[in-house]
């Protein structure tokens, strides 16, 4: 017994180092797997509060470009409104139970990274605003990511610039679909894999979300094809997609809630 205590006392530095290094390694491994519960995230009161107050100041510097983006979006929405052929094919008794499957919330990005291999954003909406895990996040130009952890007034978002992020996407002109991933290199280019060889792929084609997952509705723009090649087995294309979004300059985003997602996911669980 005496010897064990002596051993611990003699090696206390190393043991403490070993313990703390082990804890850090555990956190690191957890952060590399998708949606594992982890304690170290920036959706808490302290970091969210700090980022919020920094953002209150720094948002003034990008007011002009953000205004321009919002004005552009207004223009497209106005165009849609003018040209919409509203066809009423069913009558709703009251407007409250109006059955649209998607609900939108607005949010501001208060922290954005794009230089790491696993990037996360922090937004200023949380459980108080009924934001939950697996809600989609888009901007006026295209997709941004998926809500990961939610705190009281803040949430973290897995950016599409994250090597663990996998989002279903498809070609706009045909229904061939694949998975959108990122190889960690350029914040402008993401990779679309698993597009079958027979798909008509051409440079400059538009990529949109496929609506096959319960997170994003179909047709959210992603980007255009920058270059493509067949993979080693020569069965699937690996496509480099140039994003519509400038991921280095985003401020105002929309959170999408799919009201039917619970029902869809319960079908898969059975």
């Amino acid at each position: 017994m005496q010897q064990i205590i002596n051993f611990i006392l003699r090696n206390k530095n190393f043991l403490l180092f070993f313990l703390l290094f082990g804890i850090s390694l555990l956190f690191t491994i957890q952060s590399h797997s998708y949606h594992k519960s982890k304690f170290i995230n920036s959706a808490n009161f302290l970091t969210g509060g700090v980022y919020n107050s920094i953002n209150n100041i720094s948002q003034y510097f990008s007011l002009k470009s953000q205004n321009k983006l919002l004005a552009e979006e207004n223009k497209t929405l106005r165009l849609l409104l003018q040209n919409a052929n509203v066809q009423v094919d069913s009558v709703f008794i009251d407007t409250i139970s109006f059955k649209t499957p998607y609900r939108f919330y607005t949010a501001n990005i208060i922290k954005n990274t794009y230089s790491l291999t696993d990037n996360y954003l922090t937004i200023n909406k949380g459980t108080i605003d009924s934001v939950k895990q697996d809600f989609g996040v888009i901007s006026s130009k295209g997709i941004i990511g998926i809500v990961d952890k939610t705190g009281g007034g803040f949430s973290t978002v897995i950016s599409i610039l994250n090597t663990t992020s996998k989002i279903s996407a498809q070609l706009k002109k045909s229904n061939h679909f694949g998975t959108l991933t990122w190889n960690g290199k350029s914040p402008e280019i993401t990779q679309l894999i698993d597009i079958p060889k027979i798909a008509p792929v051409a440079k400059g084609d538009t990529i949109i979300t496929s609506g096959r997952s319960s997170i994003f509705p179909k047709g959210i723009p992603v980007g255009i094809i920058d270059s493509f090649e067949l993979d080693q087995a020569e069965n699937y294309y690996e496509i480099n997609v140039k994003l519509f979004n400038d991921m280095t300059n985003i401020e105002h985003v929309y959170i999408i809630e799919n009201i039917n997602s619970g029902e869809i996911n319960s079908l898969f669980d059975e």
Partner: protein
Amino acid sequence: MNSIFSIHTIRFISLVMLQVIILNHINFLGYINPYIYILFIALFPISTNRIVLILLSFLIGITIDLFLDSGGIHAGASVLIAYARPVILKASFGAIYEHQSIKFNTVDFGSKLTYFTLLTITHHLVLFSLEIFSISKILLVLRKTLFSSIFTILLSIIVTIIFSRKSK
């Protein structure tokens, strides 16, 4: 003791804030950021108990991780250099270290540069290996380590020169 304690508290908070508010947003050439918070570990008094240093390194690392959503990569790298610091001190300062009498203001520039370089490169190598976490991307790890280290060392030297008190 009290004044030393408060100096290190202020240094801790100001380095974390500097890192989070400014330095994480530099992204020079797309991905190069300096990680200057390791100055806290580098300049920690040598006579203090090693256990305190290891615990405080873990604390500063995990604080940075909290802000960056990066799991435990900064905590791991910081704890490692805190544990390895005596070896690095011995390698860069040699005999003076044996007498436990190093004052970081008074040592000559060359050995100080060696000390910062060794510490920074060890830290960044572990940091980026943990961040990228894949052997097949070893070149990316080395490239990030090299460029970020240069940036960090330059900035550390500048900061220590600016904030050093002249010995009378």
